């Protein structure tokens, strides 16, 4: 069978690599391999009761081929992939409108490249009307309309009442041509045509695989490629699909943009990078540290509410009494304490007991500042300045002179980031000083041992 490469470069010399095409290309590569004379699926003609069934292979043939040639370990997965390929119309069951794959002796046939989805078909209802009409003219049991098709035909007759004569004539003309064809050839072509319509007018309840993500549909590179009529009918509908606007010519970057790009690359080159080995170790140790907290890796105590239908876990977490595992997590790093509202509370309590809570309170106030509506920012900035940084401030914090000067400048035109430098400095201070004292404190250690203590008191 001649391979129809519908993915030839267009007039600009570009191949269409839009998301849809990428998938079609991959499926078509698989199909090409399936059709390979040596390593493909053996296609045969089967002698049935009164006639021959040409050009078929069985569902299990497909499944076996997929398992072997695509390194799939699981029959279920092979069946699923095969079903998708059938749903897109690349091969189809010869006796069923529903495009699914069965792992048994059911017969399948390959679709002709003319009807492949990569040809960007968007067949109109006039074509569908011609097709259904044609089917009613051919007295063959295998061409009888299914219920849903008969309903569609009735609807189309009403919708196209005024041009029905034209449609009828087309159908007649085609039926005439079809009659002249070789019997075997007809069987094959009829089934392929039917499979095409099963993709574009699927059985009610079946997935319509031609549906596109609207975000991507407007980016088809070559809108003129969209084929709207299967039977060469001219339609008085717009020749242009409404979702396919011509892609704008890729803008050439301006001189200024190029200079910006150069600056960007230079900045990236100056970046300090870590070796892969170091990074890998870091990822491993982070994951290791948190695996006890990952409900997909360690069963939560007492249970996962979604599995056990018991919400005790959530009730425990909502209580003000932090459990041992939760307290242990605060020891992983200062961010864990700052992230957890109970952790923050305990940290603050500890610092207050030492009369050194101004750093944390400043840090929290600045975090809060950044969360407020922009309207409140100038007032808040002033309040924070007065409380923590102004000469004679009641909760004076110790910031390096550089940050202090910068902040003094910033508050003249107060924005959400007025205290950014100061906050960064204070964070580093807390991390190295207050936080480590907190973790070593008896207050924290007691919380950590709390469970053990409790169980001791039971006796």
């Amino acid at each position, binding site marked *: 069978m001649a391979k129809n490469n519908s993915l030839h470069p267009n007039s600009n010399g570009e191949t269409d690599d839009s998301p849809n095409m990428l998938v079609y290309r991959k499926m078509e590569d698989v199909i090409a391999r399936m059709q390979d004379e040596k390593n493909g699926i053996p296609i045969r003609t089967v002698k049935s009761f009164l006639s021959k069934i040409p050009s078929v292979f069985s569902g299990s043939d497909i499944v076996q081929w997929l398992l072997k040639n695509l390194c799939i370990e699981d029959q279920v997965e092979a069946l699923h992939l095969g079903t998708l390929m059938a749903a897109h119309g690349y091969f189809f069951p010869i006796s069923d409108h529903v495009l699914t794959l069965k792992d048994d002796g059911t017969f399948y046939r390959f679709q002709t490249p003319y009807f492949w989805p990569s040809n960007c078909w968007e067949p109109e209802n006039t074509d569908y009307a011609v097709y259904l009409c044609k089917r009613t003219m051919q007295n063959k049991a295998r061409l009888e309309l299914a219920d849903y098709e008969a309903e569609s035909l009735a609807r189309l007759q009403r919708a196209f009442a005024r041009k029905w004569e034209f449609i009828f004539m087309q159908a007649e003309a085609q039926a005439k041509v079809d009659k002249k064809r070789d019997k075997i050839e007809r069987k094959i072509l009829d089934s392929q045509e039917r499979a095409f319509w099963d993709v574009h007018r699927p059985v009610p309840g079946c997935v319509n695989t031609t549906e596109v993500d609207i975000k991507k549909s407007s980016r088809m590179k070559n809108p003129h490629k969209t084929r709207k009529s299967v039977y060469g009918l001219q339609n008085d509908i717009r020749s242009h699909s409404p979702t396919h606007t011509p892609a704008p010519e890729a803008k050439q970057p301006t001189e200024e943009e190029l200079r910006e790009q150069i600056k960007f690359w230079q900045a990236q080159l100056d970046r300090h990078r870590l070796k892969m080995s170091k990074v890998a170790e870091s990822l491993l140790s982070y994951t290791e540290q948190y695996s006890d907290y990952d*409900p997909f890796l360690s069963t939560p105590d007492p249970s996962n509410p*979604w599995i056990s239908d018991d919400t005790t876990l959530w009730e425990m977490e909502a209580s003000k009494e932090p459990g041992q595992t939760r307290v242990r997590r605060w020891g992983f790093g200062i961010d864990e304490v700052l992230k957890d509202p109970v952790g923050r509370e305990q940290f603050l309590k500890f610092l207050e007991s030492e009369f050194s809570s101004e750093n944390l309170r400043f840090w929290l106030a600045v975090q809060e500042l950044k969360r407020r509506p922009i309207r409140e920012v100038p007032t808040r900035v002033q309040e924070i300045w007065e409380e923590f940084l102004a000469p004679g401030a009641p909760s004076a914090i110790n910031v390096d002179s550089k940050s202090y000067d910068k902040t003094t400048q910033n508050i003249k035109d107060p924005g959400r980031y007025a205290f950014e430098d100061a906050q960064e400095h204070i964070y580093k201070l807390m991390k190295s000083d207050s936080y480590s004292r907190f973790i070593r404190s008896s207050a924290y250690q007691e919380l950590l041992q709390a469970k053990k203590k409790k169980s001791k008191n039971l006796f």
Partner: protein
Amino acid sequence: MACQGLAKGETTNTLKAESESLKAKLEEERAKLHDVELHQVAEKIDALGQFVMKTRRTLKGHGNKVLCMDWCRDKRRIVSSSQDGKVIVWDAYTTNKEHAVTMPCTWVMACAYAPSGCAVACGGLDNKCSVYPLSLDKNENLAAKKKSVAMHTNYLSSCSFTNSDMQILTSSGDGTCALWDVESGQLLQSFHGHSADVLSLDLAPSETGNTFVSGGCDKKANVWDMRSGQNVQSFETHESDINNVKYYPSGDAFATGSDDATCRLYDLRADREVAIYSKDSIIFGASSVDFSLSGRLLFAGYNDYTINVWDVLKGTRVAILFGHENRVSTVRVSPDGTAFCSGSWDNTLRIWA
């Protein structure tokens, strides 16, 4: 004058050449530190056991494709949005619907839950992001209190509250991201740098950080400084659209899901792609990704109706989950990591654990 035009053309070409050569040099520098593969280092850790992950809840009620969802911080409520214009708030634990809003446009591609749990944001083909306060009064018409916050010049692809109900970060088909003040609708910062639609964004999980990552149809993943609006790091190794980006829980790395049928992990310190998650048998695009709490597992939803679960460190697939009857459009892990939710074009959402 003709000769001026010629000079200008030459400058543009020289600049272009310079830009390209710097870019190539950057790739060289990045490659120099590539002394080992992540999965090689991960050989020393134990393989994960067999997973039993099942659908624990199925949420039915949308009349058309589910496009997006987000978790409430209470770990059980979710908000979801659909092609039919409906935004629904559910108690996923009981599967009860608690609120429903009908948007004036179809294809509501983005939705987000406010940190307080008292509001939701959503938008899509209307090019806007609107915030709806959630009323305790079931009879109150939520649409009446709607607040229009963001305005883009193309569809809204993604939205996220920062650590506060007062700011929203958005990404759009117009190629930009933007930070907005909810109360006034004022644009606080805009982010330019993508050369095509931006499809997804994720805020860094740091207490001190002011960064976020975005991915788009230009195949790039960009890291941004929220304060300055600058693009601080950029990665371009995918072969097609990046549909979704998510930070690794430590904030040092992020994962992407793309139409090229792969998911990839990029590390910010190594400044490069450090892992690819792919298989010959996976040929449909990955629409959505999220990490388990420890970062060991990556859940990825695909356009072939499945969810693949990857071992992030070893690079292998540990499970494939069937169940949805059409494309999986969104996957998100719950705030405490006890479950993840998937939304699909089959009109349903599923909770897996």
